[in-house]
């Protein structure tokens, strides 16, 4: 049986839990506690986890964070369970998804507790922006409820093994997962901050509740009634269109990071990375660290998208970066066996005859991120479509307040940028709330931060596009008040 678990890694030490076993389509699979069902299956070589609703197309691991529908399986009789985020348990019975399922007519259901929770501030999302906001609020003794859908705090930080750029004051120079650890430790010392993991903020209701479904052994339906909110839901990976872009082995870069950096499972042996933004360059480097051969990084545009220093790291380890090229198809029976890449012309269309093939089992898509706007949009915040920001983003003030008074935003949700600015935005949002709550002492620091962010940090020519995006979504207080009057019906 193949074994894709990583036992030796240059920067991460994987601590595996107790050995457990479960059944998959009737066969016994050995796993470790702490893994998701999918990670356990992936580790022993499974690649197909479900089929399209009509049963015709195999589907593999894709997002790995419970967002897409590619791993829906039947777990103890319950169909449509996302096994990429379902913890593995001893004796659980898992059956792969095969098209439209039968309803779960023979299952026993556990009771869900209902809890109404009033708080000063609800923070949704525990990535850099949410964590920093919660930290700054908690340090002032404000009641904070912090929720994240992930099984631990840290958001994308926990799968980042590289050292972060930026300002030493905002954790620059530390590896992402170390930053998460440091922040979580700091938060744990704050008595007024309550945190919930595997907690999905599913919608805001006119009764004033934010519904939060907390999964796990003791499920709770948390109805949070906050005075203020910080929404920091981050971003989702984009995907692109090419033939067989759903073949198992085609995966989001973040999905592969989750597998190899959180669960310690090698996502494949031979990879092609699509996209040379910082995410693509970083993931390619991390693949090398995990022992995966990276055949090439392919970039549609004429220039590399990310920073040259990241590209240089790859080049000196022998990884070619093909600019002006795109993937046109993946091939293989039930899983990727080959990827076909072609040069593009001036209009970015593939050029006939320029195809080259790569024998790979992994095609990693790192073609950009889009803000997770759904919650905020459901709440009724005024949104704007800004391509430079990655998609639909909330209109807000420099204080990070949206068109819904009292609802603040921070991080990638407000436009794709990076961790340092997410920390800073989270902190600004926290100070703005503190100011409203009567903590006048934070105003000076808030203004200093806003000045640093806009007039220094973002002035770098290397981040001008992101700055443009953020600028287009940021409006003055007066304009915001007019917008609020207009949007009120």
């Amino acid at each position, binding site marked *: 049986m193949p074994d894709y678990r990583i036992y030796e890694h240059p920067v991460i030490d994987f601590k595996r839990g107790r050995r457990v076993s479960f059944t998959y389509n009737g066969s016994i699979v050995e796993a470790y506690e702490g893994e998701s069902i999918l990670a356990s299956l992936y580790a022993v070589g499974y690649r197909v986890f479900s089929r399209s609703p009509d049963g015709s197309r195999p589907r593999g691991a894709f997002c790995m964070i419970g967002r897409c529908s590619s791993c829906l399986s039947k777990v103890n009789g319950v169909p449509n369970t996302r096994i990429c985020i379902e913890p593995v348990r001893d004796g659980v019975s898992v059956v792969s998804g095969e098209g*439209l399922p039968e309803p779960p007519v023979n299952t026993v259901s556990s009771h869900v507790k209902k809890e109404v929770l009033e708080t000063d501030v609800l923070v949704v999302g525990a990535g850099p922006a949410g964590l920093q906001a919660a930290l700054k609020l908690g340090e002032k003794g404000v009641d904070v409820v912090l929720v994240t859908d992930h099984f631990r705090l840290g958001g994308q930080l926990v799968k980042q093994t590289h050292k972060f750029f930026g300002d030493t004051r905002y954790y620059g120079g530390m590896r992402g997962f170390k930053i998460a650890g440091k922040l979580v430790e700091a938060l744990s010392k704050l008595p007024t901050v309550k945190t919930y993991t595997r907690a999905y903020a599913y919608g805001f*209701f006119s*009764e004033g509740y934010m519904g939060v479904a907390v999964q796990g052994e003791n499920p709770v339906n948390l109805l949070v009634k906050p005075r203020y909110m910080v929404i920091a839901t981050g971003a989702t990976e984009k995907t692109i269109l090419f033939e067989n872009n759903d073949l198992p082995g085609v995966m989001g870069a973040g999905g592969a990071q989750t597998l190899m950096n959180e669960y310690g499972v090698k996502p494949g042996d031979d990879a092609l990375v699509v996209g040379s933004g910082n995410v693509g360059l970083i993931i390619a480097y991390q693949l090398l660290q995990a022992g995966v051969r990276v055949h090439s990084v392919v970039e549609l545009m004429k220039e590399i998208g990310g920073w040259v220093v990241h590209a240089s790291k790859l080049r000196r380890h022998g990884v070619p970066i093909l600019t002006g090229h795109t993937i046109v198809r993946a091939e293989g029976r039930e899983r990727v066996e080959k990827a076909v890449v072609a040069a593009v012309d001036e209009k970015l269309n593939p050029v006939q005859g320029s195809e080259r093939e790569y024998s790979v089992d992994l095609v990693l898509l790192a073609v950009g991120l889009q803000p997770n706007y759904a919650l905020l949009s459901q709440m009724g915040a005024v949104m704007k479509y800004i391509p430079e920001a990655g998609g639909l983003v909330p209109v807000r003030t420099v204080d990070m307040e949206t068109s819904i008074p009292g609802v603040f935003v921070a991080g990638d949700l407000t436009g794709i940028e990076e961790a340092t600015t997410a920390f800073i935005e989270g902190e600004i949002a926290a100070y703005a709330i503190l100011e409203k709550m009567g903590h006048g002492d934070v105003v000076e620091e808030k203004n200093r931060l806003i000045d640093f962010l806009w007039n220094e940090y973002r002035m770098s020519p290397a981040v001008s596009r992101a700055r443009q995006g953020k600028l287009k979504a940021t409006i003055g207080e007066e304009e915001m008040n007019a917008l609020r009057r207009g949007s009120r019906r």
Partner: protein
Amino acid sequence: MKTGLLIVGGGVTGLFTAVSLLDHGYRDITIVEKSYIGSGGTFRCATGIRASFTSREHVNIMKRAIDLWPILAEKLGFKYRRDGYLWVLTREKDVEFFKRVVEFHHSLNVPTRMMGPEEVKELIPSMNTEGVLSAVHDPLAGKASVFNATVNAAALLKRSGVKIYEGTQATRITSEGGRLIVETNRGRIEADKVLVAAARDTVDLVKDMGAELPIRNLAKHVLITEAFKPVIKPLIIDWSTSSYILQVLHGNIYIGADIPEEYDAPAVNKYAFLEKAAGIWVRYFPWLSEVYVLRYWVGYYDMTPDHHPIVGPLEENENVIVAAGFSGHGFMMAPAVAEALASYILGDKPALPEFENLKPERFRKGRLIKEIAVFG
């Protein structure tokens, strides 16, 4: 811009009327829709179709609609199936009342019948029938795919030269020397005739004509789950709570339940609905506990005082014809209403005499329609 007929409202009623007119060779049609096609009550509806009502008007119009649904389904290429309706009764007084309803149905040749809990269990094996005293089954009732019915109708109309302008809101209708002028946010349209099929908005649009229509919005809440293989065949109504469940043709389970609402209140999401819907239907289908809710939305029923639609030309101006106030039944009635509206527009009388009773002036004249009860 000039047109023969201007239809205000791109819902199922307006679209089907245009389709019906095409059959008569009438093509000079323009449709304006304030948002997008189907965006009002149409896309929010439960898609159920039945003739088992409690007034002669509803029953006969719906019988005609049920004759027309399969023809339209064939023509436009959408799914329609007669999977039945089932009223579940849990109180003695309801059983007595429904005995009378069934008698009324039979008098109009609607083949409903009472059944016991065992038979219900046979019809829907995964249902917990504890507490069910009796049920009424309507085998002729059914459901259709609202999305394909609407989208395909719009596509056919566009192909046939009908102009459809979305994002175009009619704001005022006036008459100038025998011609009708409709003002919109994107300019004026001149028309020979105007059909206003715009739900609650119809009220304001015909005000300038001197017509007063008693239509008010009532918010209704529904949720939809993930899709499964067929498991619940009929649309089931829990009579005592006036809530319902059905498995739509795509496989998703759709639940509607009433929570307290004021007329003309904003349509907003209320957590209370989710608890109400779950509480009622998990009792009947315990396995629903483990089923995911995908979406919850709120739509309006455009209610009239007698819960019957207002269909017909305005007394004040015969060239302005209205079709609104469907009180939750607009989708199912659309084929028959469209047929009648086409007759009005072409200057004829509808074939079904019941339409005479649905004209706008009935409220002024105090001739409201009486019925035994309103369902769901």
